[in-house]
C-alpha cells in the first residue's frame, strides 16, 4: 500500500544515515567496553493498527508492517506506538467504512454515518445492526436506505421555508426525508454548521424536527471545495477524538496523530512517551512534553507545586549568581554547569555552588539532597525551613536543566551557521558535521530527562532502590556536563574534537537509557515508594 511504502522508505533513509555514522566511527566506551547501538528513532514502532478489542481489524491492511520483529530491541521505558498522517487516518477510516459496509450491505455514505454514530466501535455497530436494523438506522439519522444520487430540482409552486423565496424556477434540494429548501439556503445552512459550529459527523437535515444526518454524498454535492477540506478535517478530528488509542500530536501546527495502546489506568506504572514524526516527544497519557521518568500524576502535582511556590522559587532560579569566592556577579551564558569566575578564576558548580574539582571525582554528590540531622528537625521552624530547602534543592536542579536545555539550543543555532562555514573551509561534508547536531540533541534530551528526575526524586521515599537511582542520576548528570562543556568550545577546535564528542554523545545517550530503563522497570513492578499517592 502507498502509505506503507512511504513510511518504510523514510524509515530506510534514516536507517542508512545512522549506519553511516556507525561505520564512520566506532562508538564505544573504553571504561566498560559497552557499546551503544544507535537505532533509528522509530524502530520501536509497530506498524500495525492496534485495536485490541476488535478482531476484525487484523485484516485491515494498510498499516501492517514487515518490521514486527524489530520489537525485540525495545527498551523497558519505551512503548509501542505508530504515527499517522491525516491522509493515513483518512485512508484507515475509508478502509473501515469499506469493510463494515460490505458486512452491513450499506453504501459507503451510510456506513460512514453509522460508524461515526457508533463512535467507530465496529463490533458493537455490527451486532446492534444485525439485531435491530431499523432502530439503528433511525437513530443514526438514516430513516430508509439511501441509494439515488442527490440532485437539484425545480419544482412548481415551491416556496423555501427558510428565506421565504417563491419565484418560479427556484432551485431546491431535499434528502430522502423530503425536507426541501432552496439551494442557497441549504448551502448556507451547511456552511454555518461546518464553518461556525465546527460540526461534521452529525449535521442534521435543516428540516424542522428532522434528525436525518446529512450524508457525505449530499455534502459533496452542495458544499464548496474550500469547505470540503474543512469538513474532511473535522471528520478526521472526530475519528481521532472518538478513539481512546489515538491522540493528536500537541505540537503547534502538527497534523499527525499517534496511536498507542496504553490505557489511562496504567499510567501509575508506565510513562508512555511517544515520538511524533514532526520531531516532538510527548506523553501519550497527558499530552505534555516528554516527562520520563516521572509518572503523569507526579508531573501534575509537581507543576502545581511549582506554580504555587513560584515566588519563593523564582529568586533561586534567576539567571545570575555570585561567585562563591569573590562574590562578583556571574551570568550564565551557556548550558554548562562548570563555571569559572572571570575575576578570580574560581571554578565551581553552578547548581550547588560547590568547588568544581570535587565534581570530577567519584564522590560527585551534587544531585542528592542530604537530609538534615534529627536534632534540627525537632525544631518546628527548622522543619518547615527544611521542607522548603528540600523543595528548593530539587526545584533548583529541575529549573537549571530546563534553562540549560534552552541555552544549549541557542548555542546550536549559533553554531549551525559557523558549521556551514567550517564545511567550506575544511571540506567536511554535511554528514560529517552532523555530530554537532547529534550532540545538541543528546544534550537536550538528557537535560529533559534530568529535569524530570528531580521532580521524580522530590516525591520519592527512600528505600533500597533509591541509591541506584541517585547513582544513575549522578552519572547522567556528569556525562551531560562533560559534553556540554565540550559543546561550548570555540568553533575552530570543534573539528579536532569530533571523535571525542561523538564518544561523549554516545555515552550520554547510554547513561540516559540506563536510567530510564531502571526507573521504568521499577515503576512497572511497584518497587518505588512515593511520599504521595499516585493517582
Amino acid at each position, binding site marked *: 500500500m502507498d502509505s506503507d511504502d512511504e513510511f518504510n522508505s523514510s524509515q530506510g533513509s534514516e536507517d542508512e544515515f545512522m549506519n553511516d555514522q556507525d561505520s564512520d566511527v566506532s562508538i564505544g566506551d573504553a571504561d566498560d567496553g559497552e557499546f551503544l547501538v544507535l537505532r533509528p528513532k522509530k524502530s520501536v514502532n509497530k506498524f500495525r493498527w492496534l485495536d485490541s478489542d476488535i478482531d476484525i481489524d487484523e485484516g485491515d491492511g494498510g498499516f501492517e508492517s514487515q518490521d514486527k520483529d524489530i520489537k525485540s530491541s525495545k527498551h523497558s521505558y519505551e512503548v509501542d506506538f505508530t504515527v499517522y498522517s491525516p491522509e493515513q487516518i483518512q485512508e484507515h477510516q475509508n478502509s473501515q467504512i469499506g469493510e463494515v459496509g460490505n458486512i452491513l450491505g450499506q453504501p459507503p455514505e451510510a456506513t460512514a454515518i453509522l460508524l461515526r454514530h457508533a463512535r467507530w466501535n465496529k463490533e458493537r455497530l455490527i451486532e446492534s445492526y444485525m439485531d435491530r436494523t431499523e432502530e439503528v438506522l433511525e437513530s443514526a439519522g438514516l430513516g430508509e436506505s439511501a441509494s439515488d444520487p442527490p440532485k437539484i430540482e425545480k419544482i412548481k409552486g415551491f416556496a423555501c421555508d427558510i*428565506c421565504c423565496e417563491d419565484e418560479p424556477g427556484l432551485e431546491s434540494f431535499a434528502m430522502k426525508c423530503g425536507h426541501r429548501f432552496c439551494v442557497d439556503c441549504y448551502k448556507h445552512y451547511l456552511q*454555518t454548521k461546518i464553518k461556525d*459550529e465546527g460540526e461534521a459527523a452529525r449535521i442534521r437535515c435543516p428540516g*424542522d424536527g428532522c434528525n436525518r444526518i446529512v450524508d457525505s454524498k449530499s455534502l459533496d454535492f452542495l458544499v464548496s471545495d474550500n469547505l470540503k477540506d474543512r469538513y474532511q478535517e473535522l471528520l478526521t478530528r472526530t475519528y481521532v477524538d472518538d478513539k481512546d488509542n489515538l491522540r493528536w500530536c500537541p505540537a503547534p501546527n502538527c497534523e499527525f496523530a499517534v496511536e498507542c495502546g496504553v490505557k489511562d489506568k496504567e499510567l501509575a506504572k508506565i510513562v508512555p512517551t511517544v515520538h511524533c514524526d514532526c520531531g516532538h516527544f510527548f506523553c501519550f497519557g497527558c499530552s505534555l512534553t516528554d516527562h520520563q521518568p516521572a509518572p503523569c500524576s507526579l508531573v501534575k502535582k509537581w507543576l502545581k507545586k511549582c506554580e504555587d511556590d513560584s515566588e519563593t522559587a523564582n529568586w533561586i532560579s534567576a539567571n545570575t549568581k555570585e561567585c562563591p569566592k569573590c562574590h562578583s556577579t556571574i551570568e550564565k551564558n551557556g548550558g554548562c554547569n562548570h563555571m569559572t569566575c572571570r575575576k578570580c578564576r574560581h571554578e565551581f558548580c553552578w547548581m550547588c555552588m560547590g568547588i568544581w574539582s570535587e565534581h570530577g571525582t567519584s564522590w560527585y554528590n551534587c544531585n542528592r539532597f542530604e537530609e538534615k540531622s534529627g536534632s534540627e528537625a525537632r525544631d518546628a521552624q527548622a522543619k518547615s525551613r527544611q521542607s522548603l530547602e528540600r523543595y528548593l534543592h530539587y526545584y533548583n536542579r529541575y529549573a537549571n536543566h530546563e534553562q540549560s536545555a534552552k541555552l544549549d539550543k541557542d548555542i546550536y543555532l549559533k553554531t549551525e551557521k559557523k558549521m556551514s562555514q567550517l564545511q567550506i573551509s575544511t571540506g567536511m561534508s554535511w554528514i560529517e558535521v552532523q555530530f554537532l547536531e547529534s550532540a545538541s540533541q543528546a544534550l537536550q534530551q538528557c537535560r529533559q530527562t534530568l529535569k524530570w528526575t528531580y521532580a521524580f526524586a522530590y516525591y520519592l521515599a527512600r528505600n533500597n532502590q533509591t541509591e541506584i537511582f541517585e547513582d544513575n542520576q549522578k552519572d547522567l548528570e556528569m556525562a551531560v556536563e562533560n559534553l556540554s562543556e565540550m559543546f561550548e568550545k570555540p568553533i575552530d577546535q570543534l573539528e579536532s574534537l569530533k571523535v571525542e564528542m561523538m564518544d561523549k554523545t554516545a555515552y550520554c545517550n547510554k547513561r540516559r537509557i540506563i536510567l530510564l530503563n531502571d526507573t521504568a522497570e521499577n515503576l512497572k513492578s511497584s518497587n518505588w515508594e512515593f511520599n504521595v499517592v499516585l493517582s
Partner: protein
Amino acid sequence: MSAGSKKRILKEYGECMNDTPSGMKINFDEQNMTEWEVLMDGPEQSVYAGGHFKLKITFPIEYPFKPPVVSFKTKIYHPNVSNDEKGSMCLGMLRPEAWKPPNKVVSVLHLIQTLLIEPNSDDSIEPSIATEYKDNRKEFEKTAKDWVKRYAK
C-alpha cells in the same frame, strides 16, 4: 444583514400578528427590525399571574441560520431564566445546536409561555432554583410570587 433575512423577519412579524399567543404584545420598529420588544402577561394558570413582563428578542446577523436571542428585561424567578442583568433564556430550540432555520419566532413565543406555566427543571440555567422547584415547590412559588409583586407590577 442580508435582504433574505430582512424579508424573512418581516414575514414572520406578519405571521405573529395573526397568531400572537394570548397575553402577548409585540412592539415592532421598522427602523430596527432585528430587535423586538415583547410585553407579556403572566399566564393565568401560573405563579406569574398578574405580572407584566418585558422581553427582548434579538435577531442575529445570521438569522435564520442562528437562533434569536431571548432576554427578560423584567426580573423573574424562574429555573430557565438567568438571574442576572441579562435575564437570558436558552433551552430547547433556542440552543444553537437545536435551532433549525425553518423554526419561527412565533414558536419561540409559545415556548416562553409554556415555560412560564411549566418550568423545565431538567434543563435549567439556575440549578438552585430548579432544585427548589423540584423539592420545595411551596417555597419556590412563594418567592416567584414575591418577585412578581416586587418587579413585575
